[in-house]
């Protein structure tokens, strides 16, 4: 089956007065229909940018400088704004981090949902309204019929994010890009929202690109995970593989730094140094200055994704295995 989303060597640049910054450098991965793929990495690794590039909402002066974005086999990176508009909402939905600022405070929740429905589906306003109420109900908001006329500030944080999810799913898209959907919420609510997202997407067969820095959320929710570092993909694989058998030294460090209640630990693992800034990315492998197992080739040649155990990793340590396609 054709993957619902495929990124092939996507590159994004930011021209600044200090020179051009490469914010995304040959990013490649794919998402199958109905699959939940987590995109994980530190702040600044490029996860949100990838999401923004996919829905065509890169903030200028950022722009796609190379590669392809394919939606169900169709190229969408070259489309103009009008054409992208037809895709946004209808084929790709989005959920952003802060539910309070994602909703227009001057319009009721109902007005915003029906507006979205009417923009994409051939329904009458009455039909749109009843569908909006259904959507609210399905996201677990009680007394949906009354609350449809409430304003965003009249909902609590968790409820608001449910409204946002309802809005994202309103036009029945095939893919949702969720950028840190639970980061702004109380920890006690996070699990509920994640559960909701999972359930709804499973019911409708919607794929999810779940962008987060929280490995715990990924472990709960995703089928596969993509690890990003300094604008590059450095590991891709099934969730249980990447978590239990990480292949890239960075991922190893990442997993080792998560405290666990079961394992006996004397110290949390720590990776020395920090992720390089975009204008100071080292030659070769971007992680080489911090890597414990660095080799001479790491400093000069940039590794592509290669087969590494059950996953793929961009690391010369796995050079011995046959170089497979990402």
């Amino acid at each position, binding site marked *: 089956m054709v993957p619902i989303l495929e990124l092939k060597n996507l590159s994004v640049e930011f021209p600044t007065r200090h020179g051009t910054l490469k914010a995304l450098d040959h990013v490649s991965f794919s998402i199958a229909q109905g699959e939940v793929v987590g995109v994980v990495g530190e702040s600044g690794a490029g996860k949100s940018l990838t999401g923004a590039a996919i829905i065509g909402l890169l903030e200028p002066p950022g722009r796609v400088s190379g590669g392809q974005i394919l939606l169900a086999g169709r190229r969408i990176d070259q489309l103009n704004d009008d054409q992208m508009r037809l*895709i946004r909402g209808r084929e790709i939905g*989005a959920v952003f981090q802060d539910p309070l600022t994602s909703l227009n405070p*001057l*319009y009721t929740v109902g007005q915003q949902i029906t*507006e979205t429905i009417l*923009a994409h589906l051939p329904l009458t306003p009455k039909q749109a309204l009843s569908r909006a109420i259904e959507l609210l109900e399905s996201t677990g*908001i009680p007394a949906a019929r009354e609350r449809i006329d409430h304003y965003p500030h009249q909902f609590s944080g968790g409820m608001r994010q449910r409204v946002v999810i309802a809005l994202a799913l309103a036009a029945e898209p095939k893919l949702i890009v969720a950028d840190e959907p639970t980061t702004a919420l109380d920890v006690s609510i996070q699990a509920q929202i994640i559960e909701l997202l999972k359930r709804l997407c499973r019911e409708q067969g919607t794929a999810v690109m779940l962008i987060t820095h929280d490995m715990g959320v990924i472990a709960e929710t995703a089928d596969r995970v993509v690890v990003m570092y300094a604008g590059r993909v450095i590991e891709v694989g099934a969730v249980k593989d990447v978590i239990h058998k990480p292949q890239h030294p960075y991922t190893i460090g990442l997993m080792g730094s998560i405290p666990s209640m079961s394992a006996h630990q004397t110290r949390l693992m720590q990776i020395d140094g920090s992720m390089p800034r975009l204008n100071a990315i080292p030659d070769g492998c971007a992680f080489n200055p911090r890597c414990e197992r660095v080799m001479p080739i790491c400093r000069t040649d940039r590794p592509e994704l290669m087969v590494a155990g059950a996953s793929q990793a961009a690391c010369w340590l796995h050079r011995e295995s046959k170089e497979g396609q990402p």
Partner: protein
Amino acid sequence: MFAFIVRRLIQAVVVMLVVAMIAFYLFQFVGDPVSIMLGQDATDADRIRLTAELGLDKPVVLQFYQFILNAVQGDFGISLRQGQNVSTLLLERMPATFELSIAAAVIALVVGLPLGVYTALRRNGSMANAILAFSLLGVSLPTFLIGILLILVFSVQLGWLPSYGRGDVIKIGWWSTGLLTVDGWKHLILPAITLSLFQLTLVLRLVRSEMLEVLRADYIKFARARGLTNRAIHFGHALKNTLVPVITITGLQLGGIIAFAIVTETVFQWPGMGLLFIQAVQFVDIPVMAAYLCFIALIFVVINLIVDLLYFAVDPRLRSSVGRGGH
């Protein structure tokens, strides 16, 4: 909400009292009214009698109270310059200032608002930049200079429009209007444009900056991500959110118009309250100054109250007393 209104009303009353105190204080410097009224040759007995009659021997607080009573009834005494009743003078000139201010306000809003929206939406267009450059010029030109330039071009050089006075006015009851005669309109054009220009550029720049700010907001980004049309986003969402702060500030601008009317009336010799006030300041005609101050303060306080109420009507966040839902 009720509490809010009460609080604002109390604040309004306090402001009026402070203004009244300043006005009352001014009257202390008019000089000795007894001597003025009786002349040099009055006997002591006459002085004492008149002083008692005028209530000038009572404590200051009581005098202030009397002053307020008079003021509320519109009695501010006699103009030192013109010898007429001050409130009569003011009421005579009010229609002129009123018509001029409303005309200027309408021009400022009708032209400024759309231009502000346009320059925000077409951010880097050459037309938008030209308008912006023009608006910068507008902010740098003092109102009186605009008036003089307009007079120079349209009155002196071209002779198309008159440069002073109101022209033919028609009295309807106590109100005199220049809006019912062609001559009246001709006289209104240049002063109205002059008065409106400064406010127009302010409105334009304000709307533009507010709209640009709103267009950067998350909910606009989310609206885009939902595939809404540009029209829906710009005019449905962004515009409404822009107008909320703009309404309040524009309401306050109306105050600016009334203030700058003083300048415009001076340049065009427009027989309004502003011209009266300036002449009073030059002449140190205190009763007129005091009356104008109180009157203007009243207008401002009322405008501010109305604007506050408008804010309530437009922004649902301020209205809500409905409880919040659960998780």
